[in-house]
């Protein structure tokens, strides 16, 4: 599920991943499932996850939705705003592979291609599903953090 390109994430980061969420023109279902992860039932704060308001504080970029042409630059800039070491978690079929928007006229490509335009070695994990369940998102995050 996780690709290895960057060096090991430091131990402290694995225990304290702060997450910044960008919706790049998805249908909003994935965003709702992401919010689910913070509810008492799933409580990702157990693993030290915090949803932060500024990309400068973030370690992991959550992307949901196909990247529309209008969202391409903002997504790349948000990624570059994040201090390294950083990683991306693509949530949902759209972000991973464009899903139903494949070959549509208004999209710039799946999020991994858009991110790798600015950082070829970006560390990226994929969480498929339409939308993925919160359990799947948590599993994806754990794989991303623990992958060598």
């Amino acid at each position: 599920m996780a690709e290895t390109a960057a060096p090991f994430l430091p131990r402290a980061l694995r225990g304290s991943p702060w997450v910044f969420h960008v919706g790049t023109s998805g249908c909003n279902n994935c965003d709702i499932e992401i919010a689910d992860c913070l509810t008492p039932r799933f409580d990702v704060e157990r693993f030290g996850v915090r949803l932060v308001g500024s990309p400068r504080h973030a370690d992991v970029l959550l992307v949901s939705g196909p990247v529309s042409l209008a969202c391409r630059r903002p997504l790349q800039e948000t990624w570059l705003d994040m201090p390294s070491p950083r990683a991306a978690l693509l949530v949902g079929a759209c972000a991973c592979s464009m899903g139903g928007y494949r070959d549509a006229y208004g999209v710039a490509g799946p999020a991994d291609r858009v991110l790798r335009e600015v950082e070829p070695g970006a560390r990226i994990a994929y969480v498929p599903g339409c939308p993925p369940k919160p359990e799947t998102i948590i599993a994806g995050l754990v794989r991303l953090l623990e992958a060598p």
Partner: protein
Amino acid sequence: MDGFGEWIWFLLVFPGAAFAAGLGLVLSWADRKVSAMVQWRRGPPPSQPFLDVAKLLGKEVVVPATSWPAGFLAFPFAAFAAASLAAALSWHAALGLPGRAPGDLVVVLYLLAVPPLAAILGGAASGNPLGAVGASRHMVLVLGYELPLAAALLVGAFQVRTVGGGEAAAGTLSLEGIARFQALAGDAVGRPSGILALLVALLCCQAKLGLVPFDQAEADTEIAEGAFIEYSGPPLAIFRLTQAVLLAAMPALLVAVLWNGSAGTPGGRAALAGKVLLVVVLLVLVKNTNPRVRIDQALRFFWGPVTAAAALALLLARMGW
């Protein structure tokens, strides 16, 4: 305190920077844990605040192109230094440690004004519009709570003059003098003026620590942490540590000024832990059961009822109650 070594120990280790930061991180875990329990969640493990800081210390420092770099990077350290000195003085008095501490109540109040000031300047130096919004909100909050906070804490010093038994305590503004007086004449919170002052001070504490309902300056969901928006890596870690130190310093200060009759005795030290924990849990419960108010509502609240209550407390203290 005479020796140079003793000074260094006082400022950097106990009860200064290292002790205050460590205790503050533990208390901030308590904050997150109690918040989680209120929401029927499990919450983070006790090591979480330490991991957060360790992680931030290992991250890249991004200095925005629009910023004033020297100020942007220096202000977090100013905030931390002032906060840990204030924590050292407060804990010195609250624990009733031997030796004379170098400052009195007025010095502590001045030092406690530095961290918000550093946040204002840091937010402004970042060149980010939301940082500027956060800085202006910090300013409004400081204007709102500083006066009632100072008035409420002065009640503790005022009683030394007006309540019988105060003759034994010299230097009415020194924290040790206040403790000595309370050992003779009873805790300030044992009198009506003291109870009112403690309530006022608790509300001001809530704003000083940036806890809901007075977290307008850092509102995550609204202005993305305001003045701290552009900070990353170690400078952000220093600001987080400063907040932790303040979380350790403020309850100790309230206790030292208003509730410190048993300072220095073994039983008093055990009670101190309970008192500090009680104050922190109260702050956290208020935080979790209230919505964020607007900044103008916060200012009106502090300048209206809170300042009036603080003035009433001073009046009561003047009458010896």
